[in-house]
């Protein structure tokens, strides 16, 4: 099998699974219980938090464990909006955000908030000037993703952060789910107030994530209940998942430099292979994230191509897994200004450092074969 759908999810590292298993077996005490068995779990939880904070170069109490990217994005956006609506009801985001951001913003529009969805250029990049110009007296939040999940385009987070810093009354949220481990981001230096991370995109397990909340950034919690996670997120902690995630984070950061240069090599090879096929249009910008390569084959239905490749044990996807069961048209490619024919025939390859050059070569070969078979019917 050749697994090229790592932006949807990754294969958990064996070490991570081992930790998950050991923690589930040994530390099943509730961290909030005051008996000794709960104490142990709580210590482990605190240690995990400390390690995560060190890895992310932030403070321990700025790390809030969540159930993943969607929750993190919702917590950040709705949390800031509901908490600070007295200051203003205007939010700035982009047209190419993940559904968990776009839909959260749309939900807030129903509640009377106003959202500016900024356009992007052909490479899927938002303009810092646009951000600057759309800030108003009543703007309370800017939410921009770091790396786009379909295209791999990298947003100018540092520059936007510099703009946001000039307005102390507004908060800056970054969805860093796709960038983590692939495109380094210094949360502190970029002036970020809230940052979403997800475990299963870095070989951790599904159902765990982190929302970085900079100190003195009060947000309205989505879940009320106990006092877990500084009352930002009530509910018994998923300790085994959390420990597994922090381990995945450590392993990811430890190998990050090597992983990135490996991904860059694979990406180059893939590009070269795909460029030779004349039906193919590459959509991902050249200076994008190294693990995502998006391309269109106008006239060919993506779903059909995916199934044809699937039959050969090769797994790729169309767009974000969170929106791929709907229409074939990619709103992100449309936002980049691509015509319908191109934005409705896109495929996404997303790599992990575990993929090999050999797999890339096999893919190119098989893909060419699939195209020529399909061309008899579709092309």
């Amino acid at each position: 099998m050749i697994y090229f759908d790592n932006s949807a999810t990754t294969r958990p590292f064996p070490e991570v699974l081992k930790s998950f298993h050991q923690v589930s077996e040994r530390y099943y005490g509730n961290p909030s219980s005051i008996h000794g068995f709960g104490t142990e779990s709580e210590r482990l939880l605190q240690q995990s938090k400390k390690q995560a904070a060190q890895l992310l170069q932030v403070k321990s109490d700025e790390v809030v464990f969540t159930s993943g990217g969607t929750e993190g994005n919702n917590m950040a956006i709705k949390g800031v909006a509901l908490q600070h609506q007295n200051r203003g009801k205007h939010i700035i985001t982009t047209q190419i955000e993940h559904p968990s951001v776009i839909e959260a913003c749309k939900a807030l529009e129903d509640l009377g908030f106003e959202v500016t969805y900024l356009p992007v250029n052909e490479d899927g990049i938002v303009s810092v000037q646009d951000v600057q110009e759309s800030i108003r007296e009543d703007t309370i939040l800017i939410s921009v993703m770091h790396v786009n999940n379909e295209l791999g385009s990298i947003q100018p987070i540092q520059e936007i952060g510099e703009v946001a810093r000039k307005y102390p009354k507004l908060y800056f949220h970054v969805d860093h789910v796709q960038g983590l481990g692939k495109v380094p981001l210094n949360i502190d230096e970029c002036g970020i107030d809230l940052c979403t991370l997800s475990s299963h995109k870095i070989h951790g397990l599904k159902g765990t994530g982190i929302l970085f909340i900079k100190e003195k950034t009060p947000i309205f919690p989505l879940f009320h209940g106990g006092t877990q996670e500084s009352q930002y997120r009530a509910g018994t902690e998923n300790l085994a998942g959390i420990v597994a995630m922090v381990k995945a984070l450590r392993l990811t950061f430890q190998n990050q430099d090597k992983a990135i240069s490996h991904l860059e090599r694979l990406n180059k090879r893939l590009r070269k292979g795909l460029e030779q096929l004349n039906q193919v249009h590459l959509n991902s910008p050249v200076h994008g994230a190294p693990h995502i390569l998006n391309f269109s084959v106008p006239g060919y239905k993506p779903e059909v191509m995916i199934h044809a490749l699937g039959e050969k044990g090769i797994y790729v996807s169309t767009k974000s897994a969170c929106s791929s069961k709907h229409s074939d048209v990619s709103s992100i490619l449309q936002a980049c200004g691509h015509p319908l024919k191109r934005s409705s025939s896109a495929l996404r390859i997303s790599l992990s450092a575990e993929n090999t050059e050999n797999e890339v070569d096999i893919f190119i070969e098989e893909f060419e074969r699939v195209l020529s078979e399909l061309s008899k019917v579709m092309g």
Partner: protein
Amino acid sequence: MEFNHILVRYGELALKGKNKKQFVDRLHENVRRKLVHFPNTKIVRNHDRMYIELNGEDPDAVLDKCKEVFGIQSFSLAMKVDSEEQAIKDAAVKVIASEPSVKTFKVTTKRVKKNFPIGSQDFNRELGGYILRNVEGLNVDVHNPDMDLHIEIRGEGTYITSKKIKGAGGLPVGTTGKSLLLLSGGIDSPVAGHLAMKRGVEVEAIHFHSPPYTSDRAKEKVLNLAKQLTKYGAKVKVHIVPFTKLQQTMYREIPDGYGMTAMRRMMLRISERVAEKEGILSLTTGESLGQVASQTMESMSAINEVTNYPIIRPLIAMDKLEIIDISKEIGTYETSIEPFEDCCTVFVPNQPKTKPDREKIKQYEASVDYSAEIEETIAGITTVTFKEEDLYQSEFDDLL
């Protein structure tokens, strides 16, 4: 800017006369231990200062570690070059150019190597002029400069330093003997331990634990506090006293108002026994005058009666807020405020006597023979030793 040395100034040790060598030896040893994880560093010392050769180690990381060593007055990052005019000039330009915020400077040359061909004053002018010609946007200001560039010309080489960084001060831990710190889970006692260490005292800790009235978490918290103290003393031993039985007996036998006095007296008796066994000559407590019932003049007098060991009370004249500030600075505050019961809060009388009478407490105590229970309690003491590494390691490392 690649600084290749850290210059360490001793401060108070200079006053130690003939005993100075012993103090410096200890400081050398404490710094060496602190830097075990920087294998390339080398410590060179002479009678009035110490140089840490970095040999490629990160200067800031080494400096951060050294800031936790008592007995150091100040540091400066230093660049060592050959004692030759041009080499010194080049290095001085590099040092000053590495700090773009510096707009004004002055040069202070000290010539320990008297055969250096240019006199100190002349060299100040000479080097000042050279810097002005080679770095843009600078002015000389001899009264209030942004950077005071120190040039120390010695036989073995010339050290160029810019700013002084404050050290932890005090005396090297281990130079003034050992004390047994009565460590509760509160804010005060770890600060008291820290301040004792600052006076060169090596600290062992004793903690009174009353299961099931006090939980494992309370004990855990105390052990964590002890671990924090290893930062300043490399190693901290903690004696955990099973106090439940004695407390129950006292609770039963001593009139309510005197319970607290009796308990403190008992703690001191047991602490003295432990100190004796460990060859320790003093006790340290976190008492602060007037803070709680046990810390009135009358209480302290009644409590102190049971021991003739000196009791070091570094906090005696401090305000709570000052104590809290120190505990935040040394990193114990967060742990101290965790809300777990300790043995002093569980058996607290409704109306503790703030002015207990010495004769009365003696009389109440005389009604019971505690000696067997005391022996049993002492026999049940368990001891844990923490090293500084424990602070950075956790039992969960294999999981994380």
